[in-house]
């Protein structure tokens, strides 16, 4: 899968492929976390590889965030995320999530 943006940081290898089902890790560390609480534990599928970027959790602590982490756009079904969702079954929610927050579902 080609990344949407090519960067030249030393990076962790991208391990998920297009359409692969992934679960967001259930974790509650301290600090600056860009994975929203409400999506943790949910399963979605890889919509694209955005590129590899320095880890913002590390950047927030004044470190260089390297090696860069692959960032994916992950697609979730709204009905899966919100138990009382009243919209169409086809509605989706897309969130950009770094690889270290994802595992194979």
């Amino acid at each position: 899968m080609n990344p949407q943006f090519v960067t030249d940081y030393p990076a962790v290898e991208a391990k998920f492929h297009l359409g692969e089902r992934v679960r967001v890790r259930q974790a509650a560390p301290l600090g600056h976390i860009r994975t929203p609480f409400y999506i943790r534990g949910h399963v979605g599928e890889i919509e694209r590889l955005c590129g590899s970027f320095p880890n913002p959790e590390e950047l927030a602590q004044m470190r260089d965030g390297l090696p860069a982490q692959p960032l994916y756009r992950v697609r979730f079904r709204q009905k899966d995320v919100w138990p009382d969702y009243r919209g169409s079954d086809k509605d989706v929610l897309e969130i950009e999530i770094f690889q270290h927050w994802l595992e194979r579902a």
Partner: protein
Amino acid sequence: MIERSHHDMGGRPAGKVKPTEHDYAEWERRVDAMAVLLGKRATVDERRKNIEALPPDAYDRMAYYEKWIISLTQTLIQRGVITTEELGRKMEEVKARKR
């Protein structure tokens, strides 16, 4: 353990969003300019970390650029660009100008 930080409120009941338009005040423009000029001396992630560390009541009460100036200041202290003593003295000096 902190299960969920206060700022991470997506999906919590909150009522309707009421959008309002307003012109930026001069100090707000200055805060924005300062953030740009500081560049990598205060990364966006450090600034976000410091905004997210605000106590919940302050987080809810403060305006957007108030959060920015607090987080910029925290970042500069954490990095040793300014000291708390310098900041405290300067703030007293500025206050005294008004009198």
